[in-house]
C-alpha cells in the first residue's frame, strides 16, 4: 500500500484524528491527534493488510530554543513530539506515527502535556512510555503504572527537554 493510499484510508476512517502527514521525508510519517492515537494504533495492529504488530520504539523529541533570536530563525513554534516506530513481522513493512503536543498543557509551565497511552495495544509501550515520561516529560493518560524508570523516583525535571538545567545538588552529591 502506498503512503498516499494509507493516509487517505486512515483519514476516511478517523476523520480529524489524522492531523497531517509528511510523505517526502526519508522515513515518511503520519500525524495523529493526542486523543486518537490509541484508537488508530489498535486499528493499525489489527487491520489485515497492515498487521503492524511490533512496536519498535516510542521517542519524545522536544523542540525549544531559549535564545529568542535563534528561535525566530528555527522555522517552527516550540512544541514536543512523541514519535512511534511500528513494524510488522508478517508483512515486513514499517510505519512512523507522530503526535504533536504543546510543551506544557494549556501553556502553564510545569503542567505536562497529555497523550493517550498505547500500553493497552502493545505491552512494549508500558516501559517505553515510562521512559518518555521520565526523560521528556509527557503524561500518558490511561497508563497502568506511570512513574520514572531510569532516573530515581525523586528526581526533579525532565532531562531531555531543551530547557532542562542540571540540579546543583542531589542528596549531597554535587551536580555541577
Amino acid at each position: 500500500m502506498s503512503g498516499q493510499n494509507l493516509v487517505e484510508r486512515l483519514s476516511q476512517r478517523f476523520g480529524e484524528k489524522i492531523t497531517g502527514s509528511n510523505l517526502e521525508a526519508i522515513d515518511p510519517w503520519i500525524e495523529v491527534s493526542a486523543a486518537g492515537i490509541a484508537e488508530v494504533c489498535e486499528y493499525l495492529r489489527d487491520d489485515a493488510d497492515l498487521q503492524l504488530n511490533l512496536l519498535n520504539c516510542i521517542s519524545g523529541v522536544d523542540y525549544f530554543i531559549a535564545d529568542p533570536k535563534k528561535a525566530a530563525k528555527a522555522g517552527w513554534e516550540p512544541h514536543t513530539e512523541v514519535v512511534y516506530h511500528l513494524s510488522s513481522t508478517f508483512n515486513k513493512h514499517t510505519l512512523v506515527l507522530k503526535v504533536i503536543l504543546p510543551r506544557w498543557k494549556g501553556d502553564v509551565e510545569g503542567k505536562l502535556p497529555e497523550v493517550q497511552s498505547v500500553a493497552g495495544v502493545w505491552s512494549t509501550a508500558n516501559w517505553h512510555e515510562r521512559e518518555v515520561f521520565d526523560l521528556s516529560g509527557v503524561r500518558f493518560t490511561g497508563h497502568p503504572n506511570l512513574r520514572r524508570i531510569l532516573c530515581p523516583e525523586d528526581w526533579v525535571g525532565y532531562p531531555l527537554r531543551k530547557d532542562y538545567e542540571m540540579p546543583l545538588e542531589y542528596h549531597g552529591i554535587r551536580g555541577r
Partner: protein
Amino acid sequence: MATQVDDARIIEFDVRTDEMLVNMGPQHPSTHGVLRLVLRTDGEIVSEVEPHLGYLHRCAEKIGENLTPRQWIPYTDRMDYLAGMNMNLGWSLCVEKLIDHQLSEKAKHLRVIIAEMGRIASHLVGMGAYGLDLGTFSPFLYAFREREKILDLFEEACGARLTYSYLTPGGATADLPNGWLQKCEAFLDQFEPIIPEYHALLTTNAIFVKRTAGIGVMSGEMAVDFGCTGPVLRGSGVDYDLRRDGEERYTEMYDGYAFEVISQKDGHYPKDHDYPAVPAEAVLGDCWHRFYVRMLEVVQAIDLVRQAIDRYSTASGDWGVPIKLAHKLPKGEVYLETESPRGQMGFYLVSDGNAIPWRVRARSSCFCNLSVTSDLCRGCLIADVPAIVGSLDVVMGEIDR
C-alpha cells in the same frame, strides 16, 4: 498414609506461608550487572517480580545531543559493551542513512566479517554466563577461552579489546591489517570443531535440560506484544530476522549470502549441521529454546564470516573512509534498526541541519526483552528466576544507556 503429589508446587499452595518481599540485586551475581528485582514470594513461589532499572544510566542520549555523530561512536560501545562492534554498526548505518552515504562492496563485506565475529563473541558470553546463572562454572571458562581469541583479533584490527569504536559512519577507522584474514580463518577452523563440546557441556546436559526445559514459556504472540526481538523472539518460533527482513540499507550488506533464519518451523530447526536433538521436555518458547537459538546462531555466524572473507578478498573499492569528524548533517530524521546479538538495536536521529544532532535516541533491545520478566516469572519458583532472566541474556549497559 502418604499422599501422592504429582506436582510439588501444589503443596505450597495448600500450606500458605506469609508473603515476603525479597530484594535480588543490584549486586546479586546472577542479575547480569546492576539489575534489581523485587520479588514478592509466597514460600518458594514467586507471585510478582518488579524490575528496577537505572543503576547504570549514563545519559547517553543527552550526551548525543552535544557531540557530532562520529564523536558519539565511543558511547555506543559502552551501551552493549559485549557487542561493541554491532552497536558501532547500528549507529553508523543510521548516520549514513541520513547523509545518504553509499559504501563500497569491500566495506560492506568487512562489516559482515566484523559484525558476525562480534555476534560469536557476544553469544559466547551469553552462553557462559547462563551456565553461571544455573550454577555451573566450567562452560564459562570454555566460552571465555575462545572469546579471548576473538578479542585478540579485534585488538589487532582496531587496538581495543572491548570498546572498539572501529566501524564508524563512512566505513571503518582502518582496513584490516595484513594477514588478519588468515588468522581469522585459522580461528574459525579451530573453533568450529569445539562447538560439540559446548553442546555436551550444556545443551544436552541432563541437569541443564531440567533447569531450562519447560521453564519461562513464552508464545510467539506474547514475544511480539512485548517487543522482544533477536534470539528471544526466534526462540518462540517467530521467523523474523532483520538481516533478511530489515531495511534495505542493512539487508544489502547480506545480499547474496546463504543463510537461513534460525527459528523452529514445523517443529524443526534449519538443518545443515549436526545439531543435538531437541529434548522431549522442551517446549517452544522456553529457556532451553532461547539458549539453543543462540548456539545455532554461533554456527550460522561462522558460516557467514567464511563467506564474507571470500568476498572481501576479491571485492573492489576501499574499506570505507570515515566521514569528517564534524560532517554537516542535512535537515531531517531517520530511524534504523539492525540485528544486534541481543535483538533489534534501533537508532533514531533528528537533525536540524547542524553538525550536532538535535536529538539522538537509542532503542535498546534488552530494554524490551527485559520488560517481559514480570509476566514470565509470575508463578514460577524462586530458583527459576535467574534461569529466566539469564535466558533473556540482558546487558544492563544497553538497558540503562
